[in-house]
C-alpha cells in the first residue's frame, strides 16, 4: 500500500500543528515562565560573574540575567517604558538610583520577614521612603575616588592640582556626568571650596582641565574604564571600587588617603525588588541569600566592595578609614540632590566642557 502525501496535505498539517501550538502552548509557557524564572538586572563583570555564581548556589529558580548598559540610571527609562509590566523582578543598583526608584513608586517595601539577613545590616544603610519603609536590600558599600597607574602615568599624583600638570597630556580618563552621578565634578568643587550645592568652582576647574588637553577620553561605561586603563591609553581616572575590580593587568594606586583635596565618596549598592514583580517572594529570597555572611564575603572577594553584613570579614585597606581619616577624606553626598541636578549638570557638561576637549 502506498501512502500519498501531497504538498497540500503537508501545508494543512503544518498549519494545523502551528495553530495547536499557538493556541495551547503559549499560555502554559508564559505562566510557567512567570512562576519559575526570576529576571535580574546586574552589572557586567565582575558583578555578573559573582551573581551567576550565587544564583547557581541558590538554585531555587532559573534566573534570566539582563546587563546594565551605560550609567546606573540607564535602566530607569527601560522600566518606565514598560511600566506597569517591566520585564524585571530584581535590580542591582546604587544610592542615587534607589532614590529615583522610590520617588517613582517602583521599589517594593522590604521587611525582616522578607529578608531575615537584613538584621545583620546597619539600618542606616537602608534606603527608606517618606514613611520610613525599607525600600532596598544593601549588599555592599564602596567608594568612588581618584586612582592612577604608576607604570603608565608620567608623574606621581599627590594632590588634585596635579591633574593640571602638562605632563599628563591625554592621560586622564574623565567619566561623563552620567557615570558616578557627576561626583567627579563635586570632587573638583570640594577641592576649590565648593560642594554639590555650589558647583561653580568645580566647573571652573574642569574647564581648565579640558582646555589643558589632559583629558584623553571621556568614559561612558565600565568597559571604557577597564579597557582604557588596561591598554595604557590613559592612566588616571575617577572611578568606583567595583569597576576597578575588573582591571586585572594594571597596578593601580588608589588616592583615598593621599591628600584632603582628593575625596572619596562613599555609597551603598544592593538590590531593589520592583513593586510590579510577580515573583516578589523569590526575588526577596534570592536577595536575602546574597547578603548572608558567606555570600557577603564572596561578594567582597569577587567584586571588591566592602560587604555591609556586619559579620562578614574583608580587608580593603584603602577603604578602611579611621575617624580622623573619615573627617579628612570621606564624603557622603546628598544623593537626592545629585539625582535632581544630574539633568542640569549633563547639559552643562555638553555646553561648557565637550567643546573644549
Amino acid at each position: 500500500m502506498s501512502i500519498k502525501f501531497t504538498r497540500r496535505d503537508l501545508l494543512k498539517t503544518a498549519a494545523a500543528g502551528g495553530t495547536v501550538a499557538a493556541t495551547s502552548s503559549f499560555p502554559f509557557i508564559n505562566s510557567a515562565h512567570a512562576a519559575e524564572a526570576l529576571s535580574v538586572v546586574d552589572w557586567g563583570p565582575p558583578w555578573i560573574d559573582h551573581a551567576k555564581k550565587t544564583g547557581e548556589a541558590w538554585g531555587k529558580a532559573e534566573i534570566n540575567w539582563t546587563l546594565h548598559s551605560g550609567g546606573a540610571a540607564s535602566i530607569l527609562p527601560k522600566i518606565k517604558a514598560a511600566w506597569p509590566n517591566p520585564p524585571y523582578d530584581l535590580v542591582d543598583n546604587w544610592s542615587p538610583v534607589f532614590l529615583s526608584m522610590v520617588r517613582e513608586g517602583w521599589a517594593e517595601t522590604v521587611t525582616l520577614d522578607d529578608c531575615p539577613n537584613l538584621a545583620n545590616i546597619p539600618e542606616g544603610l537602608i534606603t527608606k521612603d517618606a514613611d520610613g519603609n525599607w525600600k532596598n536590600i544593601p549588599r555592599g558599600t564602596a567608594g568612588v575616588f581618584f586612582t592612577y597607574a604608576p607604570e603608565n602615568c608620567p608623574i606621581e599624583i599627590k594632590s588634585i592640582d596635579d591633574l593640571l600638570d602638562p605632563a599628563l597630556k591625554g592621560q586622564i580618563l574623565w567619566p561623563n556626568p552620567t557615570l558616578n552621578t557627576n561626583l567627579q565634578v563635586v570632587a573638583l568643587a570640594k577641592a576649590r571650596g565648593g560642594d554639590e550645592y555650589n558647583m561653580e568652582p568645580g566647573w571652573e576647574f574642569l574647564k581648565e582641565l579640558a582646555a589643558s588637553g589632559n583629558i584623553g577620553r571621556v568614559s561612558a561605561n565600565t568597559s571604557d574604564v577597564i579597557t582604557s586603563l588596561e591598554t595604557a591609553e590613559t592612566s588616571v581616572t575617577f572611578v568606583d571600587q567595583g569597576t576597578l575590580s575588573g582591571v586585572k593587568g594594571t597596578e593601580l594606586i588608589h588616592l583615598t588617603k593621599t591628600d584632603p583635596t582628593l575625596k572619596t565618596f562613599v555609597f551603598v549598592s544592593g538590590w531593589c525588588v520592583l513593586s510590579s514583580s510577580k515573583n516578589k517572594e523569590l526575588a526577596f529570597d534570592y536577595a536575602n541569600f546574597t547578603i548572608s555572611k558567606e555570600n557577603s564575603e564572596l561578594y567582597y572577594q569577587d567584586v571588591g566592595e566592602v560587604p555591609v553584613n556586619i559579620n562578614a570579614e574583608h580587608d580593603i585597606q584603602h577603604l578602611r578609614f579611621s575617624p580622623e581619616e573619615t573627617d579628612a577624606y570621606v564624603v557622603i553626598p546628598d544623593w537626592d540632590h545629585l539625582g535632581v541636578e544630574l539633568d542640569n549638570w549633563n547639559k552643562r557638561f555638553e555646553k561648557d566642557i565637550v567643546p573644549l576637549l
Partner: protein
Amino acid sequence: MKLSRGAILLLVPGVGILLAFLVLPLANVVEESFRLFEPGRIGAAKDAPYTFFNYAELINVTYLYYFVETARIGFIASIVGLILGFPIAYVIARRFTPVWRKIGVGFLIGIMFLSTLVRVYALQLTFGPTGIAKFLTGLLGVSMNGRFYTELVVILGLLHYLVPIAAITLLGTIQNVNPRLTEAAQALGAPRWMAHFTITIPLCVPGLLSAFLISFTLCLSAFVVPMILGKGKVLFVSNLIYSRFSEIANYPSGSAISIIMLLLSLLIIYGVTYLVTTRWIKH
C-alpha cells in the same frame, strides 16, 4: 488622479503600517517635546504642562556647535567616501569582466552585511592603543588622545559604511554613461583625463548627488561610530539624543533635539538637491 477601489484596498495595509509605526510614534515624540520636564523624574509626567522651554534651551551657540560638528564631519566623510567610492565603481563597471564584476559587487554588498559592532571594534583595535595608533600618530606628529586623531578615526569608521554604499550607488550611473562619448572626445584630441573630467564626471552628477545624499544622511544619523570611536570627545547629535533618553531620562529634551535634527536633515537634503538640480544638472 483617481484611485480605484481595488487600488485603495491594496494601499490600506501599507498606509496602516506607516501610520502605526512611523506617524504615530513621531507624533508622540513631537507631543513629548513640548512637555515640561521635572528633574529627577523619568520622562515627563502624564499631566505635565506644555512648554517651549525644550526648544528655547537649544537656542545656544554650543548646541549649534553640535549640529555644525555633526554636519561638518558628516560632510567630510561623505565627500571622501565619494572620492574613494567612484574609482571603485568605475573599475567594476568599466574595467572588470562580467565574472569579476559579479565578484566585485558581491564583495561590496558583503561588506555592508558585516555587523556594525564588528566593524567598529575592529577599527578600535586597529587604530587604538593596542594597534597601530602609536606608529600612526608618531608619523602624523599628533597625540593619540588628541582631537585630530580622534576625528580621523571617527571619519575612518564612517568610511567603512560609506565607501561600499557610494560605490554601489554609482555603479548604475557609470554603466549608463555611454563610453562612446569619451571616445569621441579623445578622437577629437582631448587627453584622457580631460575627457574623463569634462564628459564622464558631469554625466555622473545625478548619481554622485544620490550617493552623497545617502552618505550624508547616514552620517547625520550615525550613532555607534561616534559613540565608540569618538572617545566621548567627538559627539554627534544622535549621541546627545541617546544621552537624554537613556542616561538622564529627560525625554522632552531628547524629543526636542530629535525633531530639530529631523527638520535640519530634511532641510539640508532638500537644499542640496535643489541647488544641484537647478544650478548644475539643468545647465
